[in-house]
């Protein structure tokens, strides 16, 4: 176990290093930098030179990369070039918002999607199954930001209500915070519930076709027991893999929803730092996203082993 963990972490570190290199090179290879943005049209060559020296932009790219890597390794994320705040504080605050949306969506999508998939599978081929499958298809085909907009129109015409314009942290006011995140979470969850339900339906249907399930039914085990003791346990592993995939998908979707509903999350922070060419924020933010995705994958692999000790950690 320890051996496996060490090897997995080493591989993740290597991928993260490569990713950091890709991120760094991509960002630096582009014309225009923060100095150009700051000085605008009235660019005074002396001031520009001084500013570039101040930001370290006059050094060769490889040295800039190594400097940055060294500081990241000692957890020094630096200071934002456009706002002057510590990058760690900015990313920390934004990450909180995004993670709140992501986990709320994951919970809601699981609560809705899994039962739907199970119901569809139990009623395979009948009207209920067809209705749920139609929901799945429509949910997967609809663009998530469009669902968000349509929900907004729906609630505002039905209840004459629209979400507040300014974000309130969960710690300040729970109700204000929830009314702000309700619509983005609902629209993301609708999409992911469709994905879940389709996946669960397929897994349950194929599990019911297995010999061990047929044997259990044949020897007179009640269907309910067969479902909970045999079927559910055996679809747990693919389900957890799927949850990991969904969580990463939700992180991506959150970027769009944050921009639509004016939430100060990681996605919006990345968008604004791209516009301002705020390299320290952009680099650290992207690296955090990649690290989260890797962490999710690692946790999924470890959970395999916990659920089914037969799974060899290789």
């Amino acid at each position, binding site marked *: 176990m320890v051996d496996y963990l060490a090897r997995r972490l080493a591989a993740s570190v*290597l*991928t*993260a290093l*490569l*990713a950091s290199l*890709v*991120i760094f090179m*991509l*960002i630096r290879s*582009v014309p225009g930098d923060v100095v150009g943005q700051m000085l605008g049209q009235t660019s005074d060559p002396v001031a520009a030179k001084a500013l570039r020296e101040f930001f370290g932009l006059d050094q060769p790219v490889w040295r800039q990369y190594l400097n940055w890597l060294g500081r990241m390794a000692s957890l020094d994320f630096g200071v934002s070039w456009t706002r002057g705040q510590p990058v760690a504080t900015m990313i920390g605050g934004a990450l909180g918002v995004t993670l709140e949306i992501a986990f709320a969506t994951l919970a809601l999508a699981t609560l809705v999607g899994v039962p739907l998939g199970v119901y569809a599978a139990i009623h395979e081929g009948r009207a209920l199954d067809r209705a749920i499958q139609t929901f799945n*298809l*429509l949910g*997967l*085909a*609809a*663009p*998530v*930001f*469009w669902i968000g*907009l*349509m929900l*907004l*129109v729906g609630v*505002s015409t039905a209840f004459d209500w*629209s979400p507040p314009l300014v974000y309130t942290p969960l710690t300040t006011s729970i109700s204000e915070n929830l009314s702000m995140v309700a619509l983005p979470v609902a629209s993301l969850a609708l999409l992911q519930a469709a994905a879940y339900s389709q996946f669960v339906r397929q897994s349950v249907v194929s599990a019911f076709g297995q010999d061990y399930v047929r044997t259990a039914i044949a020897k007179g085990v009640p269907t309910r027991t067969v479902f909970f003791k045999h079927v559910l346990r055996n679809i747990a592993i693919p389900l957890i893999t799927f949850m990991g995939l969904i969580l*990463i*998908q939700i*992180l*991506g*979707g959150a*970027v*769009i929803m944050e*921009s*639509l509903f004016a939430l100060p999350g990681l*996605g919006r922070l*990345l*968008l604004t730092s*791209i*516009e301002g060419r705020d390299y320290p924020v952009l680099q650290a933010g*992207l690296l955090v*996203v*990649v690290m989260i*995705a*890797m962490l999710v994958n690692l946790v999924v692999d470890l959970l395999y082993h916990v659920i089914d000790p037969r799974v060899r950690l290789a």
Partner: protein
Amino acid sequence: MSSIRACGWPEDLLLSSSLSAFRPGPLASFARMARREPDLALGLMLLALVALVVAAPGLFTAHSPLAISVDKAMEPPSAAHLFGTDDVGRDILARVVHGARVTLSICATALVAAAAIGGAFGLVSGFVGGRLDMVLGRLVDVVLSFPPIILGVMITGILGPKTANLIFALAVVYVPLFFRVARSGAMAEAGLTYVEAARSIGLSEPAIMLRHVTRNVLPLILVQCMVLFPLVLQIQSALGFLGLGVQPPTPDWGAILQQGKDYILLAPWISAFPGLAILVTALALMLVGRGLQRRLDRR
């Protein structure tokens, strides 16, 4: 017919008989397929409609997608403007209909580029194996470690909102997926007897790969194209919605949606209809992609 002919029946008997009436026409065979695979049939019909919109937008609207008439701004759907008008009085139906070509050609170009690049590298990587496979695999892992939307946002945001950059970004996001499909396909083929046979008669490795393996991996790549198309469409329109895609006034589904966002409570139809167009197209592509996948799996 040919099997009957092979039995040695006289030619004139076959021609004069009414046997040929039993050969199912294209419509009849479509109807038979529709009974067996209604999903695929529905998908194909919707896709045909979308293709017609792309090929002949003039059939569906007489309005110009760009003509501004401020006195008709934000009119709700009516007989004159079926989908209503936007904030400067442009006809939404015309914009959605003409936008189909803009949006879908960007998606298709990106998809073809990703399939060609990812497919070619995956094929070589899977067939040759060894150190090359290890290096390429690592690189693909790096690209896959980014959530697709975030990668797309990053590339278009940094390179600037131009159509060429949008296509580039979408292609980069999807190259790894084609790489994986082609790689695993080529690996499976490389172990088969026919490859060994070709090798034993002295065919060179590149010749085996190009002439034999490619031909057998190609169907996998084509089906992957259909399966990924709706996902490319989702990301393309998401980037358009974030303002990182096609720029106004060119009609693009995501861009029209973005434009309508600010008027969403006053004139919801501006955003509603392009979204519906995305939904219908994605649905058609999903149904057809799945139908093809099922057929391939059955083989």
